[in-house]
């Protein structure tokens, strides 16, 4: 086996580990640990679909479901959840993310990789006794700083006919 191929496999394994860890932290509502996976200037983007059926591409001119730059925007969302005063997260939805098929979207470098992962999230609304399923794929940009961090996450939500609400932890 070529050395490059071994490196690439090790990188893919490392990338997969981080992406699975991210999903587990969301499912366990460990928000601080989850946010610590992201770089301070990270971009989290969930585009909407255009009415003509294609995915929006320009968050500066088109509507996104979620477009947050940096930790600050998520600290607000986390604060809302922890306050116990936001009806949308009281009681908090329970989620299970199932991830599969992580692969490189482009050739990895020693300090950067772009990965695509198929995801399904089962969301249980405890008050309404209703289960919903969201699905799609993620694109993760991972950067090696002192350790690997998420610099960008794009969430493609295929079924965006949203039942009541869908916050960052539901997708």
């Amino acid at each position, binding site marked *: 086996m070529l050395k490059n191929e071994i490196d690439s496999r090790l990188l893919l394994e490392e990338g997969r580990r981080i992406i699975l860890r991210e999903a587990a932290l969301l499912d366990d509502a460990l928000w601080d640990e989850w946010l610590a996976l992201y770089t301070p200037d990270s971009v989290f983007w*969930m*585009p*909407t*679909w*255009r*009415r*003509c*059926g294609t995915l*929006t591409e320009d*968050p*500066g*001119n*088109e*509507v*996104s*479901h*979620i*477009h*947050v*730059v*940096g930790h*600050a*925007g998520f*600290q*607000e*969302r986390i*604060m*809302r959840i922890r*306050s116990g*005063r*936001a*009806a*949308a997260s009281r009681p908090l939805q329970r989620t299970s993310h199932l991830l599969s098929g992580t692969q490189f979207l482009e050739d990895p470098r020693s300090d950067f990789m772009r990965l695509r992962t198929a995801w399904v999230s089962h969301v249980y609304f405890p*008050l*309404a006794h*209703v289960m919903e399923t969201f699905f799609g794929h993620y694109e993760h940009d991972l950067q090696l700083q002192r350790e690997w961090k998420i610099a960008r996450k794009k969430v493609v939500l295929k079924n*965006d*006919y*949203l*039942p*009541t*609400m*869908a*916050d*960052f932890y539901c997708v």
Partner: protein
Amino acid sequence: MRFPRASDYIRDEAVNGTFSVHPDVFTDPGIFDLEQRHIFRSTWSFLTLESEVGRPNDFITTHIGNTPILVTRDKQGRVNAFLNACRHKGALVCVEQQGNTPLHVCPYHAWSYDAGGKLRSIRDASAAGYTDRFRNLDHNLIALPKVEAYRGFVFGSLSADVPPLSDFLGDMRFFLDLIVDRYPGGLRYLPGSTVYTYRANWKLQMENGMDSYHLNTAHSTFIDVMDRRARGEGNVAVREVSWRKRENLQQGSLTFDHGHTVLWVDEGDTEGRPDYIAAERARPRVGDVKADWMRRGRNYYLFPNMQIQDSQSLMIRIFRPIGVGLTEMTAFCLAPVDEEPAMRNWRLRQYEDFFNPSGLATPDDSVVYEHCQQGMGSVGLPWLQGYSRGTRDFIFGGNALSEEVGLHPATTTIGPMGAFVEVLMQQPYRAWSTMIDKGVEQDLRSAASC
């Protein structure tokens, strides 16, 4: 036997200081059916913007109540609206939400129609053995009995028995003008709509758009977030007007014939939203009186299916009641065609923060509607008491502000925002019960004459 009347579910004693609505209005499937028949099928509904079908052969699909609608611009440049149903078997002729095509071909047996709704071909017609009598039938798409536009807002009606759109809108035209006149370059939807459902009655959303009382409670975390941003913490790039100072601000409401309402608040912070900055830019052109109105945060309700919020950015929501306890909402971000990139970006982030079902405010509303729907299902819950804030101080007719611009409202209020008036929510229920009862009476009369 006496049939129950919609007016039996509304206790309109506003003259004596009380008004209440029976919870069955939100939970009774029979009432839902009456609403579909005598409201959504019987009056004007908002369909789309003219700019969404800007070029010949452009189309969009939407709904009025549960009826699928196809809106097109034909070769002559006219905007048309049809039942989105093939004359052959009733299948949806157009299965896309938006696009451009000279020919709508039904996916089932390929009957095809042009953008004017005219049948262009019946597939394999020559060998069909159709009689002349069949060939002489009208095969065109069924045009809505009424389609009219005002300042780029396209409305349609499934009934011909409606007043002209200008009469239906009445003084709401002044308020639509405020939105349009601020941007001489025109308005459009920004691409990417959000569509969501909630498991509760459509009228909960209707009321909530006129409800300032819930802001400090249901949206207390949104206000916390805004406070943090004002202090330089959090997502400061999406700054907003100060919500803490609001209770001392002047607030008012106006209601109109046909059930339309406007809730407004005098915002102190002129730099807090792109649309307020635009209002100040428009001031030399439109004059102080109109510019002052443009500077007020305003929520509009156009009975029955449309809300416009010219407040936390510029938003249009369309109601589609699916069942008595299930409602679909489609929301659009309305924006000037010409806008500096920084303003556009700021507008989008403000819009998403507040109005998205994945944002920081709207999900809290939708979830509490579901709480309401559960509570309203309680056996023995009597008349609701959520329509009476401001009943002591409201007046039938206009006030100095409305007279200054020549409006003729049915009711008005004005006072400190801290009163959090609810009284404006009464007016849509007057239109609601009048329309249902009139429709039921007509049905009974025509049944009796058979």
